[in-house]
Protein backbone atom coordinates (compact mmCIF):
# COMPACT_ATOMS: atom_id res chain seq x y z
CA UNK A 1 0.00 0.00 0.00
CA UNK A 2 1.34 3.45 -0.92
CA UNK A 3 2.21 5.64 2.00
CA UNK A 4 -0.19 8.54 2.55
CA UNK A 5 0.98 11.86 1.11
CA UNK A 6 1.29 14.43 3.87
CA UNK A 7 1.89 18.16 3.64
CA UNK A 8 2.88 20.49 6.50
CA UNK A 9 1.75 24.12 6.21
CA UNK A 10 2.23 27.15 8.39
CA UNK A 11 0.22 30.31 8.90
CA UNK A 12 0.65 32.98 11.58
CA UNK A 13 2.86 31.25 14.12
CA UNK A 14 6.39 30.94 15.44
CA UNK A 15 6.96 27.67 13.55
CA UNK A 16 7.87 26.12 16.88
CA UNK A 17 5.54 23.19 16.32
CA UNK A 18 7.29 22.38 13.03
CA UNK A 19 10.50 22.47 14.94
CA UNK A 20 9.06 19.98 17.43
CA UNK A 21 8.22 17.65 14.56
CA UNK A 22 11.59 18.12 12.86
CA UNK A 23 13.22 17.34 16.21
CA UNK A 24 11.30 14.11 16.73
CA UNK A 25 14.60 12.30 17.09
CA UNK A 26 14.50 8.54 16.74
CA UNK A 27 10.75 8.57 16.33
CA UNK A 28 11.16 10.68 13.18
CA UNK A 29 12.32 7.60 11.32
CA UNK A 30 9.23 5.69 12.40
CA UNK A 31 7.03 8.58 11.34
CA UNK A 32 8.77 8.85 7.98
CA UNK A 33 8.31 5.10 7.61
CA UNK A 34 4.57 5.57 7.88
CA UNK A 35 4.02 8.69 5.80
CA UNK A 36 5.36 10.33 2.67
CA UNK A 37 6.10 13.99 3.41
CA UNK A 38 5.55 15.87 0.17
CA UNK A 39 5.51 19.46 1.41
CA UNK A 40 7.22 20.89 4.49
CA UNK A 41 8.71 24.35 4.11
CA UNK A 42 10.93 24.17 7.16
CA UNK A 43 12.78 21.06 6.02
CA UNK A 44 12.39 20.85 2.23
CA UNK A 45 11.97 23.09 -0.79
CA UNK A 46 9.69 20.97 -3.03
CA UNK A 47 6.08 21.86 -3.54
CA UNK A 48 3.65 18.97 -3.19
CA UNK A 49 1.10 17.46 -5.58
CA UNK A 50 -2.41 18.75 -6.05
CA UNK A 51 -4.06 16.02 -3.94
CA UNK A 52 -2.92 15.38 -0.39
CA UNK A 53 -4.06 12.61 1.91
CA UNK A 54 -3.28 14.63 5.01
CA UNK A 55 -2.63 18.35 5.51
CA UNK A 56 -1.11 19.35 8.83
CA UNK A 57 -1.70 23.01 9.61
CA UNK A 58 0.21 25.22 12.00
CA UNK A 59 -0.69 28.81 12.83
CA UNK A 60 -3.77 30.95 12.99
CA UNK A 61 -5.60 32.77 10.23
CA UNK A 62 -4.94 36.49 10.37
CA UNK A 63 -5.41 38.02 6.91
CA UNK A 64 -7.48 37.62 3.74
CA UNK A 65 -4.66 35.95 1.89
CA UNK A 66 -4.48 33.29 4.61
CA UNK A 67 -8.21 32.67 4.38
CA UNK A 68 -7.92 31.94 0.67
CA UNK A 69 -4.83 29.80 1.16
CA UNK A 70 -6.32 27.64 3.92
CA UNK A 71 -9.47 27.11 1.85
CA UNK A 72 -7.35 25.87 -1.05
CA UNK A 73 -5.40 23.52 1.21
CA UNK A 74 -8.68 22.20 2.60
CA UNK A 75 -9.82 21.42 -0.94
CA UNK A 76 -6.57 19.59 -1.66
CA UNK A 77 -6.59 17.52 1.53
CA UNK A 78 -8.51 14.38 2.41
CA UNK A 79 -7.86 14.89 6.10
CA UNK A 80 -6.94 18.17 7.77
CA UNK A 81 -5.12 18.30 11.09
CA UNK A 82 -4.70 21.53 13.05
CA UNK A 83 -1.66 21.41 15.28
CA UNK A 84 -0.40 23.80 17.88
CA UNK A 85 -2.29 26.39 19.92
CA UNK A 86 -2.34 28.97 17.09
CA UNK A 87 -4.11 26.59 14.71
CA UNK A 88 -6.36 24.88 17.28
CA UNK A 89 -7.53 27.76 19.46
CA UNK A 90 -6.02 30.90 17.91
CA UNK A 91 -3.26 31.00 20.47
CA UNK A 92 -1.28 34.10 21.36
CA UNK A 93 -2.17 35.67 18.00
CA UNK A 94 -5.68 35.99 19.37
CA UNK A 95 -4.49 38.83 21.60
CA UNK A 96 -4.78 40.97 18.50
CA UNK A 97 -8.55 40.72 18.93
CA UNK A 98 -8.26 42.84 22.08
CA UNK A 99 -7.65 45.88 19.89
CA UNK A 100 -9.17 47.71 16.93
CA UNK A 101 -7.80 46.34 13.67
CA UNK A 102 -6.94 49.79 12.39
CA UNK A 103 -4.89 50.60 15.51
CA UNK A 104 -3.07 47.30 15.18
CA UNK A 105 -2.21 47.94 11.53
CA UNK A 106 -0.93 51.45 12.30
CA UNK A 107 1.15 50.16 15.18
CA UNK A 108 2.73 47.38 13.14
CA UNK A 109 3.04 48.85 9.66
CA UNK A 110 3.32 52.55 10.44
CA UNK A 111 2.12 55.04 7.80
CA UNK A 112 2.07 52.38 5.07
CA UNK A 113 -0.55 50.36 6.93
CA UNK A 114 -3.08 50.77 4.13
CA UNK A 115 -1.08 48.41 1.94
CA UNK A 116 -1.30 45.59 4.50
CA UNK A 117 -4.64 44.03 5.22
CA UNK A 118 -5.48 42.27 8.47
CA UNK A 119 -8.51 40.46 9.79
CA UNK A 120 -9.62 39.27 13.18
CA UNK A 121 -7.41 36.35 14.29
CA UNK A 122 -9.13 33.00 13.89
CA UNK A 123 -8.33 29.43 14.71
CA UNK A 124 -8.31 27.12 11.68
CA UNK A 125 -11.66 25.48 12.52
CA UNK A 126 -13.22 28.94 12.53
CA UNK A 127 -12.48 29.13 8.80
CA UNK A 128 -12.51 25.58 7.42
CA UNK A 129 -13.51 22.14 8.70
CA UNK A 130 -10.84 20.52 10.88
CA UNK A 131 -10.75 16.74 11.32
CA UNK A 132 -8.17 16.45 14.09
CA UNK A 133 -6.83 18.79 16.75
CA UNK A 134 -3.39 18.52 18.32
CA UNK A 135 -3.36 21.17 21.01
CA UNK A 136 -0.45 22.76 22.79
CA UNK A 137 2.21 25.42 22.52
CA UNK A 138 4.17 23.70 21.27
CA UNK A 139 2.52 20.36 20.49
CA UNK A 140 3.33 17.51 22.87
CA UNK A 141 5.12 14.99 20.65
CA UNK A 142 3.55 11.80 22.07
CA UNK A 143 0.13 13.33 21.37
CA UNK A 144 1.23 14.41 17.89
CA UNK A 145 2.17 10.82 17.12
CA UNK A 146 -1.05 9.47 18.70
CA UNK A 147 -3.20 11.75 16.56
CA UNK A 148 -1.20 10.95 13.45
CA UNK A 149 -1.88 7.26 14.07
CA UNK A 150 -5.61 7.88 14.44
CA UNK A 151 -5.60 9.86 11.19
CA UNK A 152 -3.80 7.04 9.40
CA UNK A 153 -6.23 4.49 10.86
CA UNK A 154 -9.16 6.69 9.89
CA UNK A 155 -10.58 6.73 13.40
CA UNK A 156 -11.43 9.77 15.51
CA UNK A 157 -9.10 11.15 18.17
CA UNK A 158 -10.77 12.57 21.22
CA UNK A 159 -8.90 15.35 23.00
CA UNK A 160 -9.25 14.50 26.70
CA UNK A 161 -11.99 16.79 28.00
CA UNK A 162 -10.74 16.91 31.56
CA UNK A 163 -8.42 19.16 33.47
CA UNK A 164 -4.64 19.04 33.29
CA UNK A 165 -4.86 18.47 37.08
CA UNK A 166 -5.78 14.85 36.38
CA UNK A 167 -2.47 14.13 34.68
CA UNK A 168 -0.58 16.39 37.07
CA UNK A 169 -1.84 14.42 40.04
CA UNK A 170 -0.88 11.15 38.36
CA UNK A 171 2.63 12.57 37.98
CA UNK A 172 2.61 13.35 41.71
CA UNK A 173 3.56 16.97 41.26
CA UNK A 174 3.11 19.29 44.20
CA UNK A 175 0.13 21.47 43.32
CA UNK A 176 1.14 24.98 42.18
CA UNK A 177 -1.65 26.47 44.28
CA UNK A 178 -0.08 24.87 47.34
CA UNK A 179 3.12 26.61 46.41
CA UNK A 180 1.15 29.85 46.20
CA UNK A 181 1.33 30.13 42.41
CA UNK A 182 -1.61 30.59 40.04
CA UNK A 183 -1.79 27.83 37.43
CA UNK A 184 -4.29 27.34 34.61
CA UNK A 185 -4.28 23.55 35.00
CA UNK A 186 -7.72 23.31 36.63
CA UNK A 187 -9.53 24.72 33.58
CA UNK A 188 -7.23 23.56 30.77
CA UNK A 189 -7.74 20.42 28.70
CA UNK A 190 -5.42 17.53 29.51
CA UNK A 191 -3.45 15.48 27.00
CA UNK A 192 -0.01 17.00 27.54
CA UNK A 193 0.83 14.78 30.52
CA UNK A 194 1.19 18.02 32.56
CA UNK A 195 4.43 18.62 30.69
CA UNK A 196 5.00 22.16 31.98
CA UNK A 197 4.27 21.43 35.62
CA UNK A 198 6.46 18.33 35.53
CA UNK A 199 9.23 20.79 34.65
CA UNK A 200 8.40 23.19 37.44
CA UNK A 201 6.51 25.64 35.28
CA UNK A 202 2.85 26.57 35.60
CA UNK A 203 0.17 25.69 33.07
CA UNK A 204 -0.55 28.64 30.76
CA UNK A 205 -3.75 27.21 29.33
CA UNK A 206 -2.31 26.64 25.86
CA UNK A 207 -4.54 23.61 25.18
CA UNK A 208 -7.83 25.43 25.51
CA UNK A 209 -10.50 25.25 28.16
CA UNK A 210 -12.41 22.14 29.22
CA UNK A 211 -15.80 22.25 27.56
CA UNK A 212 -18.19 21.93 30.49
CA UNK A 213 -16.49 23.57 33.45
CA UNK A 214 -18.29 24.05 36.74
CA UNK A 215 -18.04 27.83 36.66
CA UNK A 216 -19.45 28.30 40.12
CA UNK A 217 -17.05 25.73 41.56
CA UNK A 218 -14.10 27.23 39.71
CA UNK A 219 -14.96 30.71 41.02
CA UNK A 220 -15.11 29.38 44.57
CA UNK A 221 -11.69 27.85 44.16
CA UNK A 222 -10.23 31.06 42.73
CA UNK A 223 -11.66 32.96 45.69
CA UNK A 224 -10.39 30.37 48.13
CA UNK A 225 -6.86 30.89 46.88
CA UNK A 226 -7.41 34.67 46.80
CA UNK A 227 -6.56 35.00 43.13
CA UNK A 228 -8.00 38.15 41.50
CA UNK A 229 -10.53 37.23 38.83
CA UNK A 230 -9.09 39.60 36.19
CA UNK A 231 -5.69 37.94 36.60
CA UNK A 232 -7.25 34.60 35.69
CA UNK A 233 -9.15 36.11 32.76
CA UNK A 234 -5.98 37.76 31.47
CA UNK A 235 -4.04 34.55 31.77
CA UNK A 236 -6.80 32.68 29.99
CA UNK A 237 -6.93 35.24 27.20
CA UNK A 238 -3.25 34.89 26.51
CA UNK A 239 -4.03 31.73 24.52
CA UNK A 240 -7.79 31.56 24.47
CA UNK A 241 -9.05 34.90 23.18
CA UNK A 242 -10.44 33.30 20.02
CA UNK A 243 -12.88 31.19 22.04
CA UNK A 244 -15.08 34.30 21.90
CA UNK A 245 -15.52 33.66 18.17
CA UNK A 246 -16.80 30.13 18.92
CA UNK A 247 -19.22 31.56 21.46
CA UNK A 248 -20.43 34.16 18.95
CA UNK A 249 -20.99 31.46 16.32
CA UNK A 250 -22.87 29.27 18.81
CA UNK A 251 -25.19 32.15 19.62
CA UNK A 252 -25.94 32.70 15.94
CA UNK A 253 -27.06 29.08 15.62
Amino acid at each position, binding site marked *: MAKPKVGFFDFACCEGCQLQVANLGE*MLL*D*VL*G*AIDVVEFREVMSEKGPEKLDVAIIEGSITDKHAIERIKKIRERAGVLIAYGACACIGGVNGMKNNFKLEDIRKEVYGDRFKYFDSVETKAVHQVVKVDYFINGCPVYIPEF*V*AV*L*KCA*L*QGIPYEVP*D*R*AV*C*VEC*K*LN*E*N*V*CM*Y*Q*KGVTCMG*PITKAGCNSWCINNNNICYGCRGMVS*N*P*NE*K*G*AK*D*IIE*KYKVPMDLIVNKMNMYNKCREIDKREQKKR
Partner: protein
Amino acid sequence: MEQYFVLKKKSFNDFVSTMAKKQKVVAPIEKGNNQYAFEEVKSGDEIATGYIPTILPPKKYFMPQNETIAKFDISSGQNMEPVVEYEKMTIFGVRTCDLAGIQCLNMVFSDRPRDLNYLIRKNEITIVGFECNDYCDEYASCRLVHNHTPNGGYDLFFTDLGDKFIVHVNTLAGEEIIGQSNVFEKASDQDIKMLNILRTKKREIFAKNEVPIEHENIPGLFDKSYNSKVWEELEKKCVACGNCTNVCPSCYCFDVVDEPNLDLKTGRRSRKWDSCQHETFAKVAGGESFREERGARQRHRYFRKFKYPMDKFSRFFCTGCGRCSRTCMAGINLKETLTVLVEEHGMKNPNAGEVRIG
Protein backbone atom coordinates in the same frame (compact mmCIF):
# COMPACT_ATOMS: atom_id res chain seq x y z
CA MET B 1 4.62 -17.30 68.66
CA GLU B 2 4.61 -13.74 67.45
CA GLN B 3 8.00 -12.61 66.24
CA TYR B 4 9.35 -9.19 67.13
CA PHE B 5 12.75 -7.78 66.29
CA VAL B 6 14.34 -4.41 66.86
CA LEU B 7 16.39 -2.25 64.53
CA LYS B 8 18.49 0.57 65.95
CA LYS B 9 17.95 3.80 64.05
CA LYS B 10 21.69 4.15 63.43
CA SER B 11 21.50 0.87 61.51
CA PHE B 12 18.52 1.96 59.42
CA ASN B 13 20.70 3.08 56.49
CA ASP B 14 22.48 -0.26 56.43
CA PHE B 15 19.18 -2.05 56.47
CA VAL B 16 17.73 -0.09 53.53
CA SER B 17 20.87 -0.29 51.39
CA THR B 18 21.17 -4.05 51.99
CA MET B 19 17.55 -4.47 51.02
CA ALA B 20 18.00 -2.23 47.94
CA LYS B 21 20.93 -4.33 46.74
CA LYS B 22 18.74 -7.41 46.80
CA GLN B 23 15.75 -5.93 44.96
CA LYS B 24 14.12 -2.62 44.09
CA VAL B 25 12.95 -0.70 47.14
CA VAL B 26 10.39 2.09 46.99
CA ALA B 27 9.64 4.35 49.93
CA PRO B 28 8.14 7.77 50.70
CA ILE B 29 10.40 10.67 49.78
CA GLU B 30 9.69 14.36 50.38
CA LYS B 31 8.54 16.42 47.38
CA GLY B 32 8.33 19.77 49.19
CA ASN B 33 5.38 21.62 50.77
CA ASN B 34 4.77 18.66 53.09
CA GLN B 35 3.99 16.42 50.11
CA TYR B 36 5.40 12.95 49.69
CA ALA B 37 5.56 10.26 47.04
CA PHE B 38 6.67 6.65 46.85
CA GLU B 39 9.79 6.48 44.70
CA GLU B 40 12.75 4.19 44.35
CA VAL B 41 15.39 4.63 47.05
CA LYS B 42 18.88 3.23 47.48
CA SER B 43 19.57 4.24 51.05
CA GLY B 44 17.72 5.06 54.23
CA ASP B 45 18.49 8.78 54.29
CA GLU B 46 16.48 9.32 51.10
CA ILE B 47 13.36 8.19 52.95
CA ALA B 48 11.24 10.92 54.47
CA THR B 49 10.63 10.76 58.18
CA GLY B 50 7.30 11.81 59.59
CA TYR B 51 5.62 11.64 56.22
CA ILE B 52 1.88 12.04 55.84
CA PRO B 53 0.03 9.92 53.24
CA THR B 54 1.82 10.20 49.90
CA ILE B 55 0.22 12.03 46.94
CA LEU B 56 -0.60 8.69 45.29
CA PRO B 57 -1.07 5.60 47.42
CA PRO B 58 1.05 2.48 46.85
CA LYS B 59 -1.74 1.12 44.63
CA LYS B 60 0.33 2.54 41.75
CA TYR B 61 2.60 -0.49 42.12
CA PHE B 62 -0.26 -2.99 42.33
CA MET B 63 -2.26 -1.60 39.42
CA PRO B 64 0.03 0.62 37.35
CA GLN B 65 -1.49 3.75 35.81
CA ASN B 66 -0.86 2.50 32.30
CA GLU B 67 -0.51 -1.25 32.30
CA THR B 68 0.08 -3.41 29.22
CA ILE B 69 -2.37 -6.31 29.36
CA ALA B 70 -1.70 -7.64 25.87
CA LYS B 71 0.57 -7.23 22.89
CA PHE B 72 -0.79 -7.58 19.41
CA ASP B 73 0.30 -8.01 15.83
CA ILE B 74 -2.35 -7.89 13.13
CA SER B 75 -0.03 -8.50 10.16
CA SER B 76 -1.76 -11.85 9.69
CA GLY B 77 -5.07 -11.55 11.51
CA GLN B 78 -6.18 -10.61 15.00
CA ASN B 79 -3.21 -12.02 16.87
CA MET B 80 -2.98 -11.06 20.52
CA GLU B 81 -0.88 -12.29 23.37
CA PRO B 82 -2.08 -11.43 26.87
CA VAL B 83 0.82 -10.42 29.12
CA VAL B 84 1.43 -9.37 32.68
CA GLU B 85 4.09 -6.82 33.51
CA TYR B 86 5.57 -7.16 36.94
CA GLU B 87 8.58 -6.26 38.96
CA LYS B 88 9.97 -7.69 42.14
CA MET B 89 10.04 -4.94 44.73
CA THR B 90 9.76 -4.05 48.34
CA ILE B 91 7.49 -1.21 49.36
CA PHE B 92 8.82 0.28 52.55
CA GLY B 93 6.78 2.50 54.81
CA VAL B 94 3.19 1.60 54.02
CA ARG B 95 0.90 3.26 56.56
CA THR B 96 -1.97 1.28 58.07
CA CYS B 97 -4.53 3.16 55.97
CA ASP B 98 -2.67 2.11 52.83
CA LEU B 99 -2.35 -1.49 54.03
CA ALA B 100 -6.13 -1.44 54.23
CA GLY B 101 -6.29 -0.01 50.71
CA ILE B 102 -4.20 -2.88 49.36
CA GLN B 103 -6.51 -5.31 51.16
CA CYS B 104 -9.48 -3.72 49.39
CA LEU B 105 -7.80 -4.12 46.01
CA ASN B 106 -6.92 -7.73 46.85
CA MET B 107 -10.58 -8.46 47.47
CA VAL B 108 -11.74 -6.86 44.23
CA PHE B 109 -9.19 -8.48 41.98
CA SER B 110 -9.35 -11.94 43.52
CA ASP B 111 -13.15 -11.91 43.36
CA ARG B 112 -14.22 -14.04 40.40
CA PRO B 113 -13.57 -13.63 37.54
CA ARG B 114 -10.08 -13.25 38.94
CA ASP B 115 -7.64 -10.73 37.58
CA LEU B 116 -4.46 -12.65 36.90
CA ASN B 117 -2.44 -9.52 36.12
CA TYR B 118 -3.10 -8.11 39.55
CA LEU B 119 -2.63 -11.37 41.39
CA ILE B 120 0.67 -12.21 39.70
CA ARG B 121 2.03 -8.74 40.32
CA LYS B 122 0.94 -8.67 43.94
CA ASN B 123 2.89 -11.85 44.66
CA GLU B 124 6.10 -10.15 43.57
CA ILE B 125 5.71 -7.29 46.03
CA THR B 126 6.97 -7.36 49.60
CA ILE B 127 5.20 -4.97 51.94
CA VAL B 128 6.83 -3.29 54.91
CA GLY B 129 4.24 -1.44 56.96
CA PHE B 130 4.86 1.54 59.19
CA GLU B 131 2.86 2.57 62.22
CA CYS B 132 1.46 6.05 62.81
CA ASN B 133 2.10 7.07 66.39
CA ASP B 134 -0.12 10.12 66.01
CA TYR B 135 -2.51 11.72 63.51
CA CYS B 136 -0.86 12.79 60.26
CA ASP B 137 -3.15 15.83 59.93
CA GLU B 138 -6.75 16.94 60.30
CA TYR B 139 -7.93 15.16 57.13
CA ALA B 140 -7.46 11.60 58.38
CA SER B 141 -10.42 9.57 59.59
CA CYS B 142 -8.66 6.28 60.19
CA ARG B 143 -10.18 5.68 63.61
CA LEU B 144 -13.68 5.82 62.13
CA VAL B 145 -12.90 2.92 59.81
CA HIS B 146 -10.64 1.10 62.30
CA ASN B 147 -7.44 1.54 60.34
CA HIS B 148 -5.37 3.50 62.86
CA THR B 149 -3.79 0.25 64.03
CA PRO B 150 -2.44 -2.58 61.87
CA ASN B 151 -4.87 -5.24 60.66
CA GLY B 152 -2.39 -7.49 58.85
CA GLY B 153 -1.65 -7.16 55.16
CA TYR B 154 2.12 -6.75 55.55
CA ASP B 155 5.26 -8.87 55.60
CA LEU B 156 7.06 -6.70 58.13
CA PHE B 157 5.69 -3.90 60.26
CA PHE B 158 7.77 -1.10 61.74
CA THR B 159 6.89 0.93 64.81
CA ASP B 160 9.03 3.88 65.85
CA LEU B 161 10.12 3.57 69.49
CA GLY B 162 12.41 6.60 69.64
CA ASP B 163 15.98 5.44 69.10
CA LYS B 164 14.90 2.20 67.48
CA PHE B 165 12.18 0.50 65.50
CA ILE B 166 10.34 -2.54 66.75
CA VAL B 167 9.54 -4.79 63.83
CA HIS B 168 6.76 -7.35 63.65
CA VAL B 169 7.43 -10.30 61.34
CA ASN B 170 4.22 -11.48 59.74
CA THR B 171 5.34 -13.75 56.91
CA LEU B 172 8.17 -15.88 55.65
CA ALA B 173 9.05 -13.15 53.14
CA GLY B 174 9.40 -10.77 56.07
CA GLU B 175 11.57 -13.24 57.93
CA GLU B 176 13.86 -13.46 54.91
CA ILE B 177 14.41 -9.71 54.94
CA ILE B 178 15.32 -9.87 58.61
CA GLY B 179 17.77 -12.69 57.80
CA GLN B 180 19.38 -10.75 54.95
CA SER B 181 21.15 -8.29 57.18
CA ASN B 182 22.71 -8.64 60.58
CA VAL B 183 21.32 -5.40 61.91
CA PHE B 184 18.25 -6.87 63.61
CA GLU B 185 18.14 -8.10 67.16
CA LYS B 186 15.44 -10.09 68.88
CA ALA B 187 13.11 -7.77 70.75
CA SER B 188 13.45 -7.83 74.52
CA ASP B 189 10.57 -7.88 76.99
CA GLN B 190 11.32 -4.22 77.57
CA ASP B 191 10.87 -3.50 73.85
CA ILE B 192 7.51 -5.28 73.83
CA LYS B 193 6.52 -3.30 76.90
CA MET B 194 7.40 -0.06 75.13
CA LEU B 195 5.28 -1.10 72.17
CA ASN B 196 2.36 -1.77 74.49
CA ILE B 197 2.79 1.61 76.17
CA LEU B 198 2.77 3.26 72.74
CA ARG B 199 -0.38 1.43 71.71
CA THR B 200 -2.07 2.44 74.97
CA LYS B 201 -1.11 6.04 74.33
CA LYS B 202 -2.50 5.74 70.83
CA ARG B 203 -5.82 4.65 72.25
CA GLU B 204 -5.96 8.06 73.93
CA ILE B 205 -4.89 9.94 70.83
CA PHE B 206 -7.34 8.06 68.63
CA ALA B 207 -9.96 8.00 71.37
CA LYS B 208 -12.96 9.11 69.39
CA ASN B 209 -14.14 8.77 65.81
CA GLU B 210 -13.36 11.72 63.59
CA VAL B 211 -17.05 11.96 62.73
CA PRO B 212 -19.72 11.88 65.46
CA ILE B 213 -21.15 8.46 64.66
CA GLU B 214 -20.42 4.89 65.72
CA HIS B 215 -18.63 2.67 63.22
CA GLU B 216 -21.47 0.16 63.15
CA ASN B 217 -24.05 2.83 62.36
CA ILE B 218 -22.39 4.00 59.14
CA PRO B 219 -24.15 1.46 56.87
CA GLY B 220 -27.50 2.57 58.35
CA LEU B 221 -26.55 6.18 57.69
CA PHE B 222 -25.88 5.47 54.04
CA ASP B 223 -29.12 3.52 53.71
CA LYS B 224 -30.88 6.83 54.40
CA SER B 225 -28.57 9.16 52.54
CA TYR B 226 -29.23 8.62 48.85
CA ASN B 227 -31.45 11.66 48.47
CA SER B 228 -29.64 13.88 50.93
CA LYS B 229 -29.19 17.58 50.21
CA VAL B 230 -25.47 17.25 50.70
CA TRP B 231 -25.06 15.88 47.17
CA GLU B 232 -26.60 19.06 45.79
CA GLU B 233 -23.99 21.01 47.74
CA LEU B 234 -21.23 18.88 46.24
CA GLU B 235 -22.75 19.45 42.80
CA LYS B 236 -22.04 23.16 43.24
CA LYS B 237 -18.51 22.65 44.54
CA CYS B 238 -17.08 19.78 42.52
CA VAL B 239 -15.15 20.63 39.35
CA ALA B 240 -14.97 16.94 38.34
CA CYS B 241 -11.19 16.85 38.15
CA GLY B 242 -11.15 13.26 39.38
CA ASN B 243 -8.26 13.81 41.75
CA CYS B 244 -10.23 12.35 44.68
CA THR B 245 -10.43 8.97 42.94
CA ASN B 246 -6.90 8.95 41.56
CA VAL B 247 -5.43 9.47 45.01
CA CYS B 248 -7.80 7.01 46.68
CA PRO B 249 -6.12 3.79 47.80
CA SER B 250 -9.22 1.72 47.06
CA CYS B 251 -10.42 3.26 43.78
CA TYR B 252 -9.66 0.86 40.98
CA CYS B 253 -11.79 1.86 37.96
CA PHE B 254 -10.00 1.71 34.66
CA ASP B 255 -10.32 2.18 30.93
CA VAL B 256 -9.08 -0.26 28.30
CA VAL B 257 -7.34 1.30 25.29
CA ASP B 258 -5.29 0.16 22.32
CA GLU B 259 -2.04 1.85 21.43
CA PRO B 260 -0.79 0.79 18.02
CA ASN B 261 2.76 1.50 16.96
CA LEU B 262 3.35 3.66 13.91
CA ASP B 263 3.40 0.59 11.68
CA LEU B 264 -0.29 0.29 12.68
CA LYS B 265 0.23 -3.48 12.86
CA THR B 266 1.83 -4.06 16.22
CA GLY B 267 1.04 -2.46 19.52
CA ARG B 268 -0.30 -2.91 23.00
CA ARG B 269 -3.65 -3.08 24.72
CA SER B 270 -3.49 -1.34 28.05
CA ARG B 271 -5.47 -0.54 31.14
CA LYS B 272 -5.41 3.03 32.34
CA TRP B 273 -6.76 4.52 35.54
CA ASP B 274 -10.13 6.12 35.00
CA SER B 275 -12.41 8.09 37.27
CA CYS B 276 -16.15 7.94 37.88
CA GLN B 277 -15.93 11.69 38.44
CA HIS B 278 -15.29 12.38 34.77
CA GLU B 279 -18.25 13.30 32.63
CA THR B 280 -17.49 10.65 30.02
CA PHE B 281 -17.20 7.78 32.49
CA ALA B 282 -20.77 6.49 32.41
CA LYS B 283 -21.45 7.51 28.82
CA VAL B 284 -22.51 4.92 26.26
CA ALA B 285 -21.60 5.09 22.60
CA GLY B 286 -24.91 6.68 21.66
CA GLY B 287 -24.06 9.67 23.84
CA GLU B 288 -26.35 9.01 26.80
CA SER B 289 -24.61 9.57 30.14
CA PHE B 290 -26.00 7.63 33.06
CA ARG B 291 -24.47 9.85 35.75
CA GLU B 292 -24.63 13.28 34.24
CA GLU B 293 -24.51 15.46 37.34
CA ARG B 294 -21.35 16.08 39.31
CA GLY B 295 -23.30 15.72 42.54
CA ALA B 296 -24.52 12.28 41.50
CA ARG B 297 -20.97 11.31 40.61
CA GLN B 298 -19.72 12.47 44.03
CA ARG B 299 -22.52 10.51 45.67
CA HIS B 300 -21.45 7.48 43.68
CA ARG B 301 -17.91 7.88 45.04
CA TYR B 302 -19.13 8.04 48.63
CA PHE B 303 -21.44 5.08 48.14
CA ARG B 304 -18.58 3.11 46.63
CA LYS B 305 -16.65 3.67 49.83
CA PHE B 306 -19.32 3.20 52.48
CA LYS B 307 -22.27 1.27 51.04
CA TYR B 308 -21.72 -0.94 47.99
CA PRO B 309 -18.53 -2.67 49.19
CA MET B 310 -20.16 -3.18 52.59
CA ASP B 311 -22.95 -5.09 50.87
CA LYS B 312 -20.55 -7.10 48.72
CA PHE B 313 -17.37 -7.55 50.76
CA SER B 314 -18.53 -6.61 54.31
CA ARG B 315 -15.89 -3.93 54.42
CA PHE B 316 -15.64 -0.16 54.06
CA PHE B 317 -13.54 0.89 51.11
CA CYS B 318 -12.75 4.20 52.78
CA THR B 319 -9.43 3.63 54.49
CA GLY B 320 -9.51 6.92 56.37
CA CYS B 321 -6.29 8.15 54.76
CA GLY B 322 -7.76 11.60 54.07
CA ARG B 323 -6.21 11.93 50.61
CA CYS B 324 -9.44 12.88 48.82
CA SER B 325 -10.01 15.78 51.18
CA ARG B 326 -6.37 16.78 51.25
CA THR B 327 -6.15 16.95 47.46
CA CYS B 328 -9.50 18.56 46.66
CA MET B 329 -9.08 22.10 45.35
CA ALA B 330 -12.77 22.73 45.82
CA GLY B 331 -12.50 21.85 49.49
CA ILE B 332 -14.82 18.84 49.45
CA ASN B 333 -14.02 17.22 52.77
CA LEU B 334 -15.01 13.67 53.59
CA LYS B 335 -15.28 14.26 57.34
CA GLU B 336 -17.51 17.27 56.75
CA THR B 337 -19.71 15.45 54.24
CA LEU B 338 -20.22 12.58 56.67
CA THR B 339 -20.89 14.98 59.52
CA VAL B 340 -23.56 16.79 57.50
CA LEU B 341 -25.20 13.43 56.72
CA VAL B 342 -25.03 12.40 60.38
CA GLU B 343 -26.68 15.65 61.47
CA GLU B 344 -29.27 15.55 58.70
CA HIS B 345 -30.45 12.12 59.80
CA GLY B 346 -30.36 12.82 63.52
CA MET B 347 -27.69 10.20 64.03
CA LYS B 348 -25.20 12.51 65.69
CA ASN B 349 -23.61 11.05 68.78
CA PRO B 350 -21.02 13.34 70.37
CA ASN B 351 -19.86 10.47 72.60
CA ALA B 352 -18.91 8.47 69.52
CA GLY B 353 -16.79 11.15 67.96
CA GLU B 354 -16.20 14.72 67.05
CA VAL B 355 -15.02 16.61 64.02
CA ARG B 356 -11.46 17.73 64.56
CA ILE B 357 -10.68 20.39 62.04
CA GLY B 358 -7.30 22.11 62.19
